[in-house]
């Protein structure tokens, strides 16, 4: 088994009103960042878990997203990195 550090990005689903993202976008434009069109604010989860392979680690985290880490009614998730850590004894 290898220990993997897995990163997951969770954000409001496209098409669903994201008042937090809109407020941040407004604030950025107020600061003079006129180029900003769209902002979405979500969560970033980093976890370490043991698995036989990167694919297995990714599949495990996929199940975690479906059951707990994201709410598919209002959120999308994306596994952004699966990085092996030191091998466990």
């Amino acid at each position: 088994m290898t220990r993997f550090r897995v990163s997951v990005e969770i954000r409001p689903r496209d098409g669903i009103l994201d008042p937090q993202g809109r407020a941040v976008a407004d604030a950025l434009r107020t600061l003079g960042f006129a180029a900003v069109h769209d902002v979405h604010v979500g969560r970033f989860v980093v976890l370490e878990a043991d698995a036989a392979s990167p694919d297995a680690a990714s599949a495990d985290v996929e199940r975690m997203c479906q059951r707990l880490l994201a709410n598919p009614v209002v959120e999308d998730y994306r596994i952004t990195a699966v990085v092996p850590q030191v091998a466990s004894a």
Partner: protein
Amino acid sequence: MKFGIVVFPGSNCDTDAYHAVVDGLGEPAVYLWHKSHDLEEVDVVVLPGGFAYGDYLRAGAIARFSPIMQEVAEHAQRGGPVLAICNGFQVACEAGLLPGALARNVGLQFISDTVRVRVETTETIFTAAYGRGQVLAIPIAHGEGRYYADAETLDRLDGEGQVVFRYHGDNPNGSARDIAGIVNAGGNVLGLMPHPERACDARVGSVDGLALFSSLLSRVAAT
């Protein structure tokens, strides 16, 4: 008729619910600790308001995996009444007892206020003692109360008479179709963001919530 009020770490309207049932309605109630697997033969389960597990991750996301939620789900599947208020509504949606989700209020602010809520149907065990179209004064206190479901689900809720309460006049949180409370297809699980249990005593400003509890008493005790 015996009420069971689930207590999660972070529940804070459990005693309000107890007061409404015991002192307002005059029926017995027990607290059910979230780690228990025993519903103690209650007739009605109340999922109370609060911030179960600190709303970590998402409101209700972790509470739904509390041990007692297994028994609550079985109770609901048997047709047992579940009254899910505010954070309890969020827990019930996360647990799949009710469709949809509660998202961040459109104005981003936590709102603590008394709002007007319209009774959309009296054909439920929770609203039989109200009049159809009756407008109630009920407090709300939430930051994530914007009801969201896809259009197909909303149409089904509307078509099947599952929208029980709507905000009347102002929609405080941006909920889809002004929805304040819904029942499941079986009609035995009610989720609502307003707090009827905090409107059961004239000394705190409104008794408009009491008829929800007396509806349950007349309709559930009769079966």
